[in-house]
């Protein structure tokens, strides 16, 4: 019997077993990290839960000054929810439109255009922030915010306030641009997963393209498209830099989102702004870690729901689950 490197023979050491154990450890690494992360965030933010109790989530006062410390994260939680929801409301219809166009046009058109949309995902967050701060803000303020304010400012509450460009509206629009590549790429895959027969049947009955989408694709891919939008919501919730640079960074009571044209703050931006100034000896740092914990839990919940919905839809395509 020939013996060479790696040829099975009688050996004391079972290298295969070691390899398998090594790979399993690497696989389980992610579980260990997640568990450790939740534990660390819980234990390090413990002082603030002790100090504030549930008031940490429901309070609106935020004051890190020594002796007058008070930490309520409600304005930031609301800020995150409002900006992310607005971003979804603007970004999702656009993304579904893009997915419709790309899934239904010839390769020579859809490929380069699709690539450009995907490149939006490659632009770093901080560059979106830079562009938003120095370019987009000025145009947006002059052409959209000021006219809207002048027309509706007195009658509609969410158009009140003075348009300045560093506010919830601007931040949400930038967030909407940032979630477009994710949502459109996933929606496109989901629309492709609709069986060809469904589309052909619609055409056979004499449907136009739009009617084909209405009759065959949307009913079939509803769940998946909802999942894709929630995935976009998850992205928007976790986004930090661009929002930090554009939302105006209010703190405490004034950060409660009341109007589109008001400065606010999100959970991620308060952390980015105050984290390195916070002293580990005071409650300020635990409070920021606590905000991180709330942000993490929000993001996990959103993403778990999105994954379940989207995976289910794509499994339908493969015939594992019967729709």
């Amino acid at each position: 019997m020939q013996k060479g490197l790696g040829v099975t023979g009688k050996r004391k050491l079972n290298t295969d077993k070691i390899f398998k154990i090594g790979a399993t450890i690497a696989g389980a690494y992610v579980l260990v990290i997640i568990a450790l992360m939740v534990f660390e965030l819980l234990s390090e933010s413990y002082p603030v839960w002790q100090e504030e109790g549930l008031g940490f989530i429901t309070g609106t006062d935020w004051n890190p000054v020594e002796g007058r410390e008070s930490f309520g994260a409600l304005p930031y939680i609301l800020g995150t929810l409002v900006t992310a929801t607005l971003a979804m409301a603007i970004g999702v219809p656009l993304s579904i439109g893009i997915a419709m166009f790309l899934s239904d046009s010839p390769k020579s058109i859809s490929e380069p255009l699709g690539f450009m949309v995907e490149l939006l995902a490659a632009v770093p967050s901080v560059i979106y922030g830079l562009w938003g701060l120095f370019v987009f803000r000025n145009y947006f303020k002059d052409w959209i915010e000021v006219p809207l304010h002048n027309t509706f400012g007195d009658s509609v509450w969410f158009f009140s306030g003075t348009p300045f460009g560093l506010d919830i509206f601007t931040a949400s629009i930038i967030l909407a641009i940032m979630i477009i590549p994710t949502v459109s790429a996933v929606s496109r895959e989901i629309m492709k997963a609709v069986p060809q027969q469904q589309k052909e049947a619609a055409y056979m009955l004499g449907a136009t393209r739009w009617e084909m989408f209405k009759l065959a694709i949307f009913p079939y891919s509803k769940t998946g498209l909802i999942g894709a939008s929630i995935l976009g919501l998850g992205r928007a919730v976790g986004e930090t830099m661009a929002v930090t640079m554009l939302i105006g960074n209010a703190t405490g009571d004034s950060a409660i989102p009341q109007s589109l044209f008001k400065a606010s703050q999100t959970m991620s931006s308060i952390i980015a702004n105050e984290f390195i100034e916070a002293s580990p000896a005071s409650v300020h740092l635990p409070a920021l870690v606590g905000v991180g914990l709330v942000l993490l839990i929000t993001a996990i919940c959103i993403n778990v729901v999105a994954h379940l919905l989207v995976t289910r839809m794509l499994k339908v395509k493969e015939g594992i689950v019967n729709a």
Partner: protein
Amino acid sequence: MTSTQKRLEYRMMFKQNVEKRLLVDKIVRIIVFSCVIIAIIPLGSILAEIFKNGTAAISYEFLTATPGAIGTGEGGIGPAIQGTLIIIGMSSLIGIPIGVLSGVFLSEFGENRLAQIVRFFNDVFMEFPSIVLGIFAFLIIVLVLGHFSIWAGAFALSLIMFPIIARTTEESLKMVPMTYREAGLSLGLRRWVITMRIVLASAKSGLITGILLSVARIGGETAPLIMTILGSSQFFHSFDAPMDALPLRIWRLSLLPYDSAQLQGWGSAMVLIIIILAINIGVRYFFLRKRGSGMFSRLIRQKILGGKR
């Protein structure tokens, strides 16, 4: 279930007012096309502004010197470029082995309950807010050591990197035909030799794609660096000291109220975007082209989704 009755109804509906229906169809097509245009305008504007404003800032001094006094507009971003390269290298050192091995686990030993759980949490972990990963690295490294360090930054970025690599490795290993593995087994090779020498070698381009895409991703990451490497204006001198990075420098420059700082910000953004776009377009051109269309979006989807394939 669509009954015969319903089908008749549809047919009647479709026979009537054909012109109006065609008009609606046309309008929808225009709306849908304008969605694509609306999405591409920001990309065009970002690139145009960066190159228009950035070229004015670029000079030999700008690329190599340390930052000058605040507000003077002198000096450059040498430490930031160096820092970005160091931090990418170090996080790759941690992230790539774990990511590749974890991908091997999912693809080669992936038919059990543990692997299903790992696959799911891997996908969820990919979507964790990056700033929370920064807090985590701060708590377990910076707080314990007592000073800001490159290790903490590299660890935080490796956490972003490894799930992406694990997922792309798994997908590309699954594309290697089962017969390759069987051929190895029939030669009496050990499993790990088959995996390392045959399977990983034939899935090389997929692996490199995943690694490069994850490098492009962490190259632009700012949030986790704020609380780990902090930023500095000196060149690298120790792993246990603060360091600068391009995205961090861009952020700090954008907060300054001087025109010169703004100009330097655009210059730094240009350097950063050239690095990132070069990786993205290069990957697409060299590695994804051969596999036919849609591979890029499929990769994006795989980076995001946990669909079993």
